[in-house]
């Protein structure tokens, strides 16, 4: 559905974009900006300025800026969203809850405000409310992965509470509330910035097919994913982020195939040119992997602290691999070297250790 965004001034060329999610809204804004509307440029400047203030840690100033902007465009969903995020980051939870709640009322199609409401409720240990908000987010956008993930955390917490009641353990002391992922879509953090109070999730712009082709300026300059800024300027980083998000997807799919013991998908994640370490040939290595993976009743492979460097059609993914199975729990540093071939990123080298 097309969200009602009457106050969002858009050049006529952009009106045909169907904005099914906030992300796309942001992306569409980028696209529109790239089309060179003066009004949009001005608007983008306002967002960029708020963005800059936040990155500089000047949250109060950023808030003043959003209020100034909203005084003239009170319905603007993006600025209101930014305001809610700033309020959250400033610890003004009650204000942030009001901001996001109003956003859900005015723009019930957007999943992100529901998600962030859930983050706030969860931080207050109001898990039932958090759950309701996340279910709304998912109803709005059924493939909204962050909301699913957050909902998983909330379910786990609710389950833990139910178990504590079942076992008559002290329910007042069940640990800290889970930290859910806050969507800060218009903000980017640099890897050098201070740790944010909440787990930060960058949302990569999904550039609609209508986007004009951009030149791969950034290709020669590896960009670290955490630093990938999503700004109002549709320049190289967005493209680099694209390559990075593809590599992330590939790593994610590899970890998932391994977790699911889907040998076909798992082995398929490795390029024909893959060289096993230790001098094994490919066939022996595959047999070894099958022998290690198939008999397990449960395997979980989690990828943490992922950093991806893309250099043309080659990429390096470094991460902390948390492996759990029915027999083993182990965390280790892992590096995967990947090559893009036929539109897919395939693993050519896998090494453990830093």
């Amino acid at each position, binding site marked *: 559905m097309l969200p009602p965004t009457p106050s969002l001034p858009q050049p006529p060329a952009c009106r045909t974009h169907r904005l099914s999610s906030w992300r796309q809204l942001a992306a569409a804004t980028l696209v529109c900006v790239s089309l060179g509307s003066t009004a949009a440029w001005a608007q983008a400047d306002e967002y960029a300025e708020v963005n800059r203030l936040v990155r500089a840690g000047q949250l109060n100033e950023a808030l003043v800026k959003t209020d100034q902007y909203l005084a003239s465009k009170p319905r603007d969903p993006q600025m209101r969203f930014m305001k809610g995020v700033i309020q959250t980051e400033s610890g003004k939870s009650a204000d942030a809850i009001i901001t996001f709640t109003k956003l859900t009322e005015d723009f019930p199609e957007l999943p992100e405000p529901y998600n962030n409401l859930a983050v706030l409720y969860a931080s207050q240990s109001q898990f039932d409310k958090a759950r309701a908000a996340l279910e709304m987010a998912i109803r709005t956008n059924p493939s909204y*992965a*962050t909301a699913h993930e957050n909902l998983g955390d909330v*379910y786990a917490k609710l389950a833990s509470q139910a*178990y504590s009641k079942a*076992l008559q353990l002290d329910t007042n002391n069940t640990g800290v509330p889970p930290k859910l*992922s806050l969507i800060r879509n218009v903000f980017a953090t640099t890897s050098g910035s201070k740790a944010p109070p909440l787990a930060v999730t960058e*949302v990569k712009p999904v550039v609609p097919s209508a986007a004009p082709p951009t030149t791969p300026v950034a290709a020669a300059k590896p960009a670290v994913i955490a630093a990938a800024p999503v700004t109002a300027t549709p320049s190289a980083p967005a493209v680099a982020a694209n390559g990075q998000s593809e590599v992330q997807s590939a790593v*994610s799919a590899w970890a998932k195939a391994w977790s699911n013991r889907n040998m076909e998908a798992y082995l398929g994640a490795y390029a024909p040119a893959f060289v096993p370490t230790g001098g094994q040939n490919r066939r022996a290595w595959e047999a070894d992997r099958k022998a290690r993976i198939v008999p397990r009743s*449960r395997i979980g492979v989690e990828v943490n602290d992922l950093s991806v460097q893309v250099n043309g059609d080659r990429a390096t993914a470094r991460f902390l691999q948390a492996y759990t199975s029915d027999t083993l729990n182990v965390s280790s540093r892992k590096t995967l070297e990947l090559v893009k071939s036929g539109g897919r990123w395939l693993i050519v080298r896998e090494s453990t250790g830093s």
Partner: protein
Amino acid sequence: MARSWSLRRGHASASFPTPGAASQRPAWLTVLLGLTTVAVVTLSSWWIHQRADDTEPASGHSAAESPSLITSALASMRPSVTPESAALRVGLEHQPLSDAALARTSPLLGQAEARLIGIYRLIQQSKPREALREAEALALDHPNFQLAQLVLGDLLNLQTRPVKQFGDVADTQALAAAKQLQELREQSRRRLAALTERPPEGAVPSQFLALSSSSRHAIAIDATRSRLYLFENAAARSSDAQGRVSAAQMKLIADYYISVGQAGIDKRSEGDLRTPLGIYYITSSLDPEKLPDLYGSGALPINYPNGLDALRGNTGSGIWLHGSPSEQFARAPQASEGCVVLSNPDLENLLALVSVRTTPVIIATELQWVRPEALNAEREGFQTTLAHWRTLKSAGDLAKLQQLYSPRFENQGQTLAEWWPRVEDEVKAKGDRAMQVKDLSVLRWLDQDDTLVVTFGEVAEGVRRGVTKRQYWMREDNQWKIIFEGAV
């Protein structure tokens, strides 16, 4: 800087696994079976093999895989006694956990238990979302129903991860409360067993040779199954002049989960934390306002130690049927100091129905269910003996009458010689009038001895009021002899 990035977070790729999405259906089923294997379905493996119209192939598959905790529990519960009257015994019927069976059984259960079983049924039918909704409602209504909370925890986890076992708590929780966890699983197992092993329609526990119409209700407890059965006595007020009565006509109107003593059953001595086995009567109803919270919504003391207990030197006192404390909707199968503990709503139902002095409470290791006609021969045989006793007492033949009393006779420490003057006085007071026996109940307790607990109204002819007598007759050298006698 310790910044964590999980691939699963904030990633908007379309290929991302989304829990609950249609593509996850097969995984969901696997997950579901993880719970049902342990919790529910194995119970019904026999029924799946037997029924052609089984509609849960998925469940059937899991049931066939491996014997679960419940299966083995059931195996150990099946009657293993080889009875001398096997032909008369009908035993419990295996009843599948089907909708039709539940519709029949649920009205008998406590409401909370019926809802819990309904949730199990939904899990079995692969309806985890509906099950979750019901579990949340149940936990909301009864936050102190720990078993419901455990099931709720599993169903919540089931939304996002496989549940490996019933009560799939975190390791830390399992360590911190290993006993509670084990007890909850046991409670669940017993509740399920009671639901799938049903007394056949019209069957009665073998103790009820005859039940007077003055006993409007009767209670029978199967300690092994943690189950209390409540009967309504449908017997018409009919006995002939001899006091002869027909078979007990009892209708099962409720059955509830109960807890017994921490150390189990077969109480022998004060403080042994065991629940007595035998035939008892409710002696009073205690005001819940004056009871500590531990006893919940009320208490019904029973007459432990009874005449047989006294003869055997069993000691202790204060055995009650009572409710549950506010923090626990239901207690572990073995939890009390010897009392029989019910959930408060169930106890309240008992309070509304049973009556002091006339409601029998049979507490057995394991109840034997029989057709009422199966007890005819025993009852009629005894009624001949009782008629003989009545005739001798009516005629004032004290010498012959005394032969019906056992040398082991005892009443509150009095031997037969010490007691006999009372019998003589009764005969004297009655004069020439014949003795009538009214409202006869005969309850049989079979352990190392064969004992009848006989209750009746003893009224002299032409006299308006008599006394209610209770006698314990024990089979000695194939003759019934009175080992205890007293007014109730």
